[in-house]
């Protein structure tokens, strides 16, 4: 038995094995965070969002997204190149995300018609992302330090973690539960409850694929029970570890996007 452990340690398998047995809640949320937002050291994907209102009216958003991690689980850079709808086509949205609480994210928007590079002053991350039911924070990840985490249930397949905001006044929800796959650490469902404890929004991972060894949510659906609207987000052409240069996340490429973003 002892020698088996030695072999496992040597192969570097020990930590996941041990973690799988009895991870603490902090380990669970940290790993889920990395799986959800930090796969590989960088990556790209084409994202298609279909927003369906309560009345059934559909709106479409399509953009290519490039991501590069500065540190795993920490700062990141995002480059978003819009393709649809036509009035935002070729707009570029650049984010330097900072996990340090004292520092707001740096955000830029390039408007091609005016050849204008604007700094975005908006700092509220709990506003809609491009008019969808996803919030900025759902896309770029909510800082783990913003909530207290409690493992409320463990089933055969899932860890269920309850997250309570440390500053309740800064957010519109009361708390949210995240169901995390025990094997892959992919968050498969998020349920948001309002201040009175009534569920009002869910985000579900509808389809998960393994791409280059990384489990990837390729389709997720957010349903807003209050407004009756729904947004489906589909990932395609996802690729990891494509060696994006740091310079892509600068003004040079804002004004003229790299091929990786256009294609």
């Amino acid at each position, binding site marked *: 038995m002892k020698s088996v452990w030695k072999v496992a340690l040597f192969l570097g398998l020990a930590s996941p094995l041990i973690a799988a047995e009895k991870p603490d809640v902090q380990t669970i949320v940290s790993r889920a965070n990395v799986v959800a937002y930090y796969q590989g050291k960088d990556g790209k994907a084409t994202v298609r969002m279909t927003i369906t209102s309560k009345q059934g*009216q559909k*709106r*479409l958003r399509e953009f290519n997204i490039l991501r590069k991690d500065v540190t795993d689980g920490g700062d990141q850079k995002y480059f978003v190149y819009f393709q*649809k*709808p*036509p*009035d935002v*086509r070729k707009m570029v949205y650049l984010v*330097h995300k900072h996990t340090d609480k004292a520092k*707001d994210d*740096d955000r830029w928007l390039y408007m091609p*018609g*005016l*050849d*204008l*590079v604007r*700094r*975005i*002053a*908006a*700092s*509220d991350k709990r*506003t*809609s992302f491009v*008019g969808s039911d996803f919030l900025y924070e759902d896309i770029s990840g909510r800082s783990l330090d913003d909530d207290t985490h409690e493992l409320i249930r463990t089933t055969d397949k899932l860890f269920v973690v309850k997250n309570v905001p440390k500053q309740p006044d800064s957010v519109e929800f009361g708390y949210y539960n995240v169901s995390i796959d025990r094997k892959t650490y992919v968050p498969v469902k998020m349920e948001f409850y309002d201040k009175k404890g009534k569920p009002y929004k869910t985000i579900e991972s509808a389809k998960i694929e393994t791409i280059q060894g990384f489990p990837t949510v390729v389709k997720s659906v957010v349903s807003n029970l209050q407004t009756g*609207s729904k947004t489906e987000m589909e990932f395609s052409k996802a690729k990891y570890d494509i060696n994006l240069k740091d*310079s892509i996340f*600068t*003004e*040079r490429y804002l004004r*003229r996007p790299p*091929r990786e973003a*256009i294609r």
Partner: protein
Amino acid sequence: MISSGVIRAFLVISVPAVVVLSATVTASEENTEESFFSELPVEMHGFYEVRGGYRLRKDKYEKDMSIMENRFQLDLYSYLDWGDIRFKGDAYGDLVTEQGYFDMRDANVFLRPLDYMDLKAGRQILTWGTGDLVFINDLFPKDWQSFFIGRDTEYLKAPSDAAKVSLFGNWANLDIAYTPRFDHDRFISGERISYWNSNLARLAGQDAIVHTDKPNEWFRDSEIAGRLYKNIENYELAFYSYRGYWKSPGGQTPTRSQATFPDLNVYGTSLRGSVGKGIGNVEFGYYESADDQSGRTALINNSEMRYLIGYAQEIGKDLTMGVQYYLEQMLDYGRYKNSLASGPTRDEYRHLTTLRLTKLLMNPNLRCSLFTYYSPSDEDVYMRPNVNYKASDNLTVEAGANVFFGDNPHTFFGQFQNNTNIYTGLRYSF
């Protein structure tokens, strides 16, 4: 004469309509046969727009109709292995002037010949600087007429025929924009907007259209603008220089029969970055009026110092506010006053404040915004309210106004009082 003008206007309006119909067909084909369309090397987009507006006050020098046009924009873009090619042009029929126009806004190639160098040559829109609808070091052409009559803000920038070389280094980056033949602003000439005419010492418009004597020779009457910039921890520092001409008329010929564009050199700097919960910016520029360095010539603008400080922050849910303070200081003011024969004088210091409020509503298909210029020294105001609603991914409706008022008829915005107008527009994009 009139009937032929109307027929011409009808023709220029109906032709784009036919084009847009066929374009709409293409756009819908794109949806059904996307794989086929995305194989093509050319991306085709654009919009069709109708826009109309009226003056709210009687202006005896201009028509009541401030804007009435049908516009079709076609945007063709192709990226090849060696570079990008872009054409973007507007065809529009204008019922105010009863003419049809074609305005080529982009016709350029983009190359990346070296790892540290970009080159864009041809007709293009160029912008830099930190101000929000206030420009100090951005000396690329503006279209003030479009801005004041209620066209989309995009049209405030007029295209340049230029070559822009950008060099990127570890220490700093450098942009150089060379315009071989001077591109002036599409300035207020009296054709569409009435203005203060200092020679007549009264308001004027179509009865006194400004004629210009402009630097017009290729390569001799050129402009060159440079920007050296660096991002230091996301604080954007830039230095600028410009050698060319006053972009809107800045002088007159000795007989005062024509307006001129005297020589102008500008040196400036700017800094922009996060301050507290928002974004702050400062910008400065020294305008050296090279043809009148002493300030003694009454017919040519004096040199100026221009300063700007601004701050923008989110102040509520989906509500942002931006404030700016701008100061224009005329140099050699005493000589300017002595050189003037009569008429109202400009102040030595022109103070200007701006306030922008933008509120997004209905997730966020409805955008309400108000941009206000207020000058305490000129005692005049210019307000730009606008409501823009995205009825669908392709269809946008908007309405807005350009409201001018002031205590005096000769001040920067006060002179446009009678041009106060409202407008509405409908745009189908594909």
